[in-house]
């Protein structure tokens, strides 16, 4: 601590010193000579620019040799040449250096990381930072996705888990796991210095679909993404999940550069889930109806059992329809993007326009996007500059179906519909008409009718614009103000037809057709004023101080209406339904936050680096007695953070080593928070309580004035290394993120009449390790780069006010218990199926029914483990049956280049994660007349039959399909996410500077034992719904062909 104090005093001292002129030390200059080589070719680099700060400058000669004057033996010289990463060399006392420049296309710690307000070379960062560069050419190959596709799989510790295969649905981002039980777990995204909202607000009218704000950033507009994985304390209570800085395209030179990309892709329909065929299904239906209590005779008289073609209606039940084929289809998508960069000495600009149209695998689904971005940098004078970033997007989707079970979801109905029926009405001779059938005698809708007549439309437009003024007050001092706004508007419009759809009964009446509409507006104003002080302190000291205030003001309004039973399916607008069924609702929310921040970097002799971060964060959401300093009517919490790094390779004993190029040890600690506690949760409020239709008020909450942000402390230690002239670079980080003062709903004393109140109680800890290795395996003529990122983390609940709780999510029970990992599956263990009644009787087991009576198991029932041995299977027998957190995740990526051809591939994998296969849980339960998967062919049907599948029983009275390890599967997978072949055409005409042709395969191969359609999914961002696969539309194999032209 004393040590830290001294540093702080030293920083303070230096900061208030008058500007130390670099010229003072000029006389004591020393001469340094060296040579510059290319790592790529091993040959000297001619005309490389060699600088020593702004003190001296020279070029290399034809042998790559140079001689330059430096200020001290610990000075830095920087070398840059076209096509190579600019490189900083710490002299560390040397007077002769050999410099190896690595090519721009390879990974290097010499690259810049971008922090919104400033950029810094990664060799000098003290925090756990990963920077990912992106080019138009790269993006062109990856097809159409949303912004996160740029860094997906490139950053250890970051999981971008695709939500599902609905086009444009995007991914949930998890940086080092979870930090909150009930709050937001997504990292903070900063686009061009301004907070970008990634949360999806309100309630979607389309079950299973959430809006994806990141889709409004076109990948080819992204130039750099920098992730701060440890504590970015200057972002206060928004940074508990790390920060992602996105920098969009900027022109760096005045020459006009035009890039045009065009690509098209072909996507294969997903695999069918193997469902029973007509014959198998008829047998099953017979059995299930018998178990329902119908007599064999009455079943035999049902029309689907009829075997006589002369009986009218015979043909109606004699089909063998693969319903899944009726809803899925291969499809084609196309994408065009144009980017122009250029300018003059006053203004530089980058303009990009794009349009894409994607079709989805569910028939009728699509996703169209128009995007526009105009970024410019204007020099008003030498002292005043302006950066403006303006983007506008329009996205429209037809979602058709998500497979969240309902009578009006085409995919879910296709899976459960009787295969002996077909979609068209047939006459008594079996001739089909073009008219679609109505819902069937088992109350299953006609999926084809849903696709053809239904509508699930989602529209979204976002204007995201900022103006950043910089005013150089003096040589060391810059005042900047960023003012920006984000105007997000989402519209949904849903129509479920009457034709062919099974009606839904509600308390209010029978629903026949449905019209729904929703509008959400989210308006944000940001202002960020800051001052940057960067004095010149000579060779041995470097300092940067940045201080500012960031204001973020949000208003959100959502309105929706639902109307039912319009006169006919052509009347589709709200207001035409039955007034008794009409529903409406919405949300309105305002919130704002203000953060005062200070960031300072101090470097001693360029090898001992220190960072101090301070954030003072206040939000309208905090309670009046929350932790912190009272200001502006709320409380401000203090978020300190500090980090230090030691560049060991700059020490004399390693300087000039042929093996070790860079060895840097980093350590950081910091506090961050999470302000996602609800807009009014910490205020005393009243809510509406009507007396009949007349509005009244009542107390809304048991007010906890002390409610504030969650606290998240992040400790990180890491090592950045590169060897053999940067041919191998690696980075390893170990971390501990500890959430305390967790936002939780605490049971209230019953005397208050309230169920509970929100409080900052409890916490959990995530420990983990992230590793990255990248290597240039071979140099010319065949260049081969190989990289791998790995991450592993484990989360343990430290403290929970009720010690243990079980949360039901989609049929699963999720356990949260002190001392255990987060989000465990808690259910019954099974030991097969009783072969016969005798075996069942012998086991002595009986089931506790809903009315508390005990019923003995019999043949064909699942053998549940009597975990709490009392002969009774009831909730006491539940145990941990799976852990959705993976043991290890990562990605391997490689790139091979040979002359004009390059091949890229990346393989993502996840090991040791358990998945609750909810889809199988609903399609194999044998408790309804719904069609089942082919697994049930082996169901128990006679005494003595040894099988793993229990008997079919209507309503499942013995709860054989309860949440058990039957539905838990190993979700490990390895997936060839992308393989891409590029050929650079040898063109050099007046109009076309370059032309790349490429072919990309996406998700071509997936290795997994998992039975679901897609092992990669994310139900939502919550910590308690990990690993629950509800079987939404899967991601599929896709082939993409395209061209990128440089004009």
């Amino acid at each position, binding site marked *: 601590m004393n040590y830290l104090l001294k540093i702080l005093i030293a920083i303070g001292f230096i900061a208030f010193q008058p500007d130390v002129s670099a010229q003072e030390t000029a006389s004591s200059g020393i001469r340094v000579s060296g040579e510059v080589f290319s790592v790529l070719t091993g040959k000297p680099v001619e005309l490389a620019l060699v600088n020593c700060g702004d003190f001296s400058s020279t070029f290399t000669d034809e042998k790559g040799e140079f001689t330059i004057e430096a200020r001290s033996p610990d000075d830095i010289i920087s070398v840059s040449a076209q096509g190579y990463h600019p490189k900083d060399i710490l002299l560390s006392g040397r007077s002769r250096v050999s410099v190896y420049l690595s090519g721009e296309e390879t990974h290097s710690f010499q690259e810049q990381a971008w922090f919104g307000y400033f950029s810094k070379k990664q060799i000098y960062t003290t925090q756990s930072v990963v920077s990912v560069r992106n080019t138009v050419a790269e993006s062109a190959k990856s097809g159409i996705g949303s912004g996160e596709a740029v860094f997906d799989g490139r950053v250890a510790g970051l999981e971008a888990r695709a939500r599902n295969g609905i086009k444009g649905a995007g991914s949930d981002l998890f940086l080092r796991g979870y930090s909150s039980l009930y709050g937001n777990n997504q990292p903070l995204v900063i686009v061009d210095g301004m907070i970008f909202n990634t949360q999806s607000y309100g309630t979607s009218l389309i079950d299973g679909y959430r809006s994806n704000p990141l889709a409004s950033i076109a990948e080819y507009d992204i130039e750099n993404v920098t992730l701060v994985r440890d504590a970015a304390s200057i972002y206060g209570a928004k940074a508990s999940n790390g920060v992602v800085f996105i920098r969009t395209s900027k022109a760096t030179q005045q020459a006009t550069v035009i890039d045009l990309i065009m690509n098209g892709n072909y996507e294969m329909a997903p695999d069918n889930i193997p469902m029973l065929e007509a014959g198998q299904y008829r047998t099953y239906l017979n059995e299930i109806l018998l178990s329902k209590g119908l007599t064999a005779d009455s079943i035999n008289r049902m029309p689907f059992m009829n075997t006589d073609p002369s009986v009218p209606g015979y043909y109606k039940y004699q089909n063998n329809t693969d319903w899944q084929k009726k809803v899925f289809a291969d499809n084609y998508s196309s994408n065009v993007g144009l980017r122009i960069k250029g300018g003059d000495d006053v203004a530089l600009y980058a303009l990009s326009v794009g349009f894409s149209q994607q079709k989805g695998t569910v028939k009728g689904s699509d996703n169209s996007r128009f995007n526009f971005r105009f970024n410019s940098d204007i020099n008003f004078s030498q002292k005043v500059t302006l950066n403006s970033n303006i983007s506008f997007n329009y996205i429209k989707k037809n979602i058709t179906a998500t497979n969240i079970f309902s009578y009006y979801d085409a995919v879910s109905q296709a899976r459960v519909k009787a295969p002996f029926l077909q979609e068209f009405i047939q006459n008594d001779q079996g001739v089909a008409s073009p008219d679609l059938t109505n819902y069937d005698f088992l109350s299953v809708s006609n999926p084809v009718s849903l696709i053809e007549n239904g509508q699930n439309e989602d529209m979204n437009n976002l204007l995201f614009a900022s103006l950043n003024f910089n005013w150089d007050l003096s040589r060391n001092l810059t005042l900047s103000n960023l003012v920006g706004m984000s105007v997000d508007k989402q519209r949904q419009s849903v129509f479920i037809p009457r034709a062919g759809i099974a009606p839904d009964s509600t308390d209010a009446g029978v629903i026949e057709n449905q019209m729904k509409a929703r509008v959400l507006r989210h308006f944000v104003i940001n*202002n960020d004023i800051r001052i940057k002080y960067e004095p010149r302190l000579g060779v041995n000291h470097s300092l940067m101080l940045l201080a500012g205030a960031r204001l973020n003001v949000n208003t959100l309004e959502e309105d929706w209406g639902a109307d039912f039973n319009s006169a006919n399916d052509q009347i589709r607008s709200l207001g035409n339904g039955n007034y008794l069924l009409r529903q409406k609702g919405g949300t309105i929310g305002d919130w704002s936050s203000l953060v005062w921040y200070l960031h300072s970097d101090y470097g001693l002799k360029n090898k001992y680096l220190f960072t101090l971060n301070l954030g003072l964060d206040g939000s309208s959401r905090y309670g009046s007695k929350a932790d912190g300093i009272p200001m502006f009517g709320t409380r401000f919490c203090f978020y300190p953070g500090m980090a230090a790094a030691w560049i060991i390779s700059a020490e004399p004993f390693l300087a000039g080593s042929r093996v070790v190029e860079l060895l840097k040890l980093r350590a950081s600690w910091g506090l961050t928070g999470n302000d996602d506690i609800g807009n009014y949760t910490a205020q005393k409020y009243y809510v509406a309580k009507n007396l009949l239709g007349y509005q*009244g008020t009542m107390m809304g909450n*048991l007010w906890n004035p002390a409610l504030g942000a969650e606290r998240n402390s992040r400790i990180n230690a890491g090592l950045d290394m590169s060897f053999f002239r940067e041919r191998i670079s690696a980075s390893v980080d170990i971390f501990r993120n500890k959430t305390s003062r967790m936002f939780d709903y605490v049971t209230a004393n019953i*005397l208050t009449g309230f169920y509970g109140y929100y409080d900052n109680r409890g916490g959990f800890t995530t420990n983990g390790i992230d590793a990255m290795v990248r290597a240039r395996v071979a140099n010319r003529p065949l260049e081969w780069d190989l990289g791998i990122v790995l991450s592993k983390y484990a989360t343990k609940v430290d403290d929970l006010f009720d010690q243990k709780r079980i949360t039901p999510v989609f049929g699963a029970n999720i356990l949260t218990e002190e001392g255990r990992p987060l989000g465990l599956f808690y259910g019954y263990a099974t030991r097969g199926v009783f072969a016969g009644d005798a075996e069942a009787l012998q086991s002595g087991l009986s089931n506790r029914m809903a009315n508390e009576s005990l019923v003995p198991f019999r043949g064909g029932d699942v053998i549940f483990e009597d975990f709490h041995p009392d002969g009774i299977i009831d909730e006491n027998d539940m145990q941990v049956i799976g852990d959705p957190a993976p043991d290890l995740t990562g990605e391997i990526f490689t790139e091979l280049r040979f002359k004009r051809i390059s091949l890229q591939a990346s393989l993502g994998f996840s090991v040791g994660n358990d998945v609750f296969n909810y889809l199988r849980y609903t399609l194999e339960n044998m408790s309804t007349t719904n069609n089942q998967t082919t697994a049930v062919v082996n169901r128990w049907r006679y005494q003595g039959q040894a099988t793993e599948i229990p008997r079919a029983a209507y309503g499942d009275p013995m709860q054989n399909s309860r949440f058990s390890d039957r539905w838990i599967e190993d979700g490990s997978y390895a997936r060839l996410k992308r393989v891409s072949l590029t050929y650079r055409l040898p063109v050099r005409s007046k109009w076309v500077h370059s032309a790349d042709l490429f072919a990309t395969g996406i998700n071509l191969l997936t290795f997994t034992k998992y039975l679901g359609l897609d092992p990669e999914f994310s139900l939502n961002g919550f910590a308690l719904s990990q690993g629950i696969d509800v079987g939404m539309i899967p991601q599929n194999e896709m082939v993409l062909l395209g061209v990128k032209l440089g004009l």
Partner: protein
Amino acid sequence: MRPTRLLTFPVVAAITLLSCLSCGDLLRTGADEVLLADEVYRNKEDADAAIRGIYGQLMDVATQYVVLNELRADLMDVTNNAGLSLMELSWHMPVSHNNEWASPRRFFSLINNCNDVLENFRIMYKENRLTREQYNMRYSDIVAVRSWVYLQMALHFADATRGGVPWITKPLGDTGEASAETLTGLQYLDLPVLVDSLLATMESIPFKDHYSDGGLITTIDGYESRLMYIDKEYLLGELNLWKGNYLRAAQYFKNIMERGQSGNDQYDLYKMVYDASATLDQTSCRFNSGYLRYYGNDRQSAKNMWPYMFYETQTANYLYEWIWVLYFDPLSEPNSFIGLFAKDGGSYLLKPSALAMEKWDSQVQNNSFRGDFRGYYDNLYGLPGSYVVENGDPVILKHIYNHYIDGHTTITQRAGKWHLWRAGGLHLRYSEAANRNGQHRVAYAIMNNGIGANYPGADPDAPANDFTLRSQTLLPFPYDFDARTTSLAQLPPNLRMPWHRNTGVRNRVSLQRNSVEGDSLTVIENQILEECALELAFEGQRWGDLVRIALRRNDPAVLADAIAAKLNRAGHDGEGVRTRLMDRKNWFLPLE
């Protein structure tokens, strides 16, 4: 552009921002979704909204009120569809931790909200946002609601260790007010002590009448709001009856009976009258049941009009009967009793106990027929009664008459009422008080066949047409009844005194009057208790009646025997439960 001009924007922006930062509530947002504390209790309209909020919440305890008061007592039982939580209540088993029916949470929530409203009313009055008159009315009403809720809660719940229920009169609105220290420091009151407190509080309220404010006496969704508010005099009568102040109780009840001052009101309002038109016509029957005129001995001519009181709304008959009733409206809050009782459209969880059905079936009518119109009395011209037998299953109808009669295919038919207090109960309570106050004959008359029939009172010296002393109790208030009705030839001529139509609780449904043998006090009280079962079954009075009488006589067997009888009749271990219930501690559910 000149550089200096271009500087304007950043400078202005910076200054604006900095000046913004100096305003104190930069980070205070207004809430549109909820009402923050400074957006309520600003004026009279806000105060009225708070009152509606309280009555709205009261609606939420409707089903629990009926379940606790009836299922725990002897007249209601579970069907095979009921789950464990209802069984536990019906059969007096220890209740599970998660039994929502046995949770006092809603009562505490109401008490807390009442306390919050009262506290805010006090502040509003002090700050002149309510006039004295406005304040008195509203304050008194909410105190009455709170008292009623307290009485209900104390009837069923008691702290397992400390006994009784906590006496909370301050709002517990935030975690400080609801801190562990505050809560453990609360005083716990046993039922009789609590009654004393409630009585003291209620006697001291400044206003005991009905609202006279247009903001509150209005029509809400087509229902008159007047009957939705608690009747303070009735509550005071009840509390005095609990306390043992029988005269005072009788006075309060009599006040209610005498509310009709002119027109038909003075004869019919809350006076339990006969059908003046003698036709048992639905519009004029005053809920009398019997037989078609001149066919008194014909079973086929039975005409059950009594149950119409549970079906009709806002008719003359209805307004003469009902004192406190709340409504379920299909568009805002459909009838929550349908789920409990209905077979069609509901889950049919509760049914009449075998004991209750026997009670009705063993009644003897004026024509010596057996059965009670108020139970299930099959008839061609009227309604079934308190329950109906559908396919062999008895289905309680009282709370779902609208649903039963109007059908249930659309939401508009999910209307209903929550029946709290009415003339039938009023007369039986009055009887109970009068009986204990030594006025056995008055009590008997009110319960059986009315004042007129029981007070011949002829003066032997007067001419035969002199009715001066007849049909009158000739007692001071509250036992003063004048039931004289004379013709032109009689003395005094053409007299129609207010009580001349009084017919008695039993006679209204054509039942024979009870005979009294032995100690009138006890016998009549037992008969009143029995009559309460027949008249008020399923309306949520039974448990309270049993507890009140048992406490008064200091004889737990009154309650224990009744419940044991129900369980024995249903084939359960009644004796075990009787033993348990002989200990008063076991009457109460734990406070958790």
